[in-house]
């Protein structure tokens, strides 16, 4: 039996849907539009946004080497011109903790708080950023 829902794009869609509505339109995975060092430098960089990083996480498999569960880590980084706004956005993003995502017809375990080690508020490439994170399994 293979682990379900391995497409990160499906995970991103579910995470976006689970975030507060106030963040709609400001959540990106990968590049941010207007990033002059990205592949889509046209246009302006948003005033603020939330960057989502999703990656598969190692989960011990059975003795036969197979696993029916897949582990995942998500890091959500708020970027803004003002540090106070960054902290407010991170507080809103934190509401995702404890929720269950439905991805590819499979319900995940509740998202468990697991922040990145460099998640504290900091200067970040001309702006400010802070991050929080969660882990879950499908």
């Amino acid at each position, binding site marked *: 039996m293979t682990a379900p829902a391995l497409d990160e794009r499906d995970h991103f869609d579910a995470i976006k849907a689970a975030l507060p509505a106030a963040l709609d339109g400001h959540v990106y995975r990968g590049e*941010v539009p207007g*990033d002059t*060092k*990205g592949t889509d430098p046209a246009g302006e960089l948003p005033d603020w946004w939330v*960057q989502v*990083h999703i*990656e598969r*996480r*190692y*989960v*011990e498999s059975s003795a036969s080497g197979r696993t029916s569960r897949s*582990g995942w*880590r998500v*890091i959500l*980084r708020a*970027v803004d011109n003002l540090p106070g706004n960054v902290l407010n956005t991170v507080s809103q993003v934190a509401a995702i903790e404890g929720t269950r995502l439905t991805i590819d017809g499979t319900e995940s375990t509740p998202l468990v708080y*697991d922040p*990145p*080690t*460099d998640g504290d508020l*900091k*200067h*970040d*490439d001309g*702006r400010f*950023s802070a*991050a929080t994170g969660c882990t879950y399994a499908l």
Partner: protein
Amino acid sequence: MARVSVEHNLGDLVSDLSRIPVDAVTQGAKVVKKDTREGRNIARRFARSSAGPHGKSYYKRITDEASGLEGEYGPTAVKGENYVGAGWRSGENTDLPRSADIIGPKLAKDVGEMVDSLFWPSGDR
């Protein structure tokens, strides 16, 4: 007629049980030190594999330190905010969390085996 006489007291058992707290600390420290070093090695491998052209030596910053039943590993200095590879444009660095995913369960398993071995000092089961 043959006769079997068995004489024993609880002295040996008391002696074995008395050693458990002492051995738990010394053996536990060895486990922590070994797995902290292994965690560092795993994190370094991730760092080397994800390094760009400006970060070829970054993995050397990841060091470890263990004392008693505590250990830690990670980069010795916080990455500068204006370093190449730092910042929102470069994405998230997950060398340490990924290494923790591997070394965490291993440490738990090693500690469990160590505690189990304390009750069998001679190795017999």
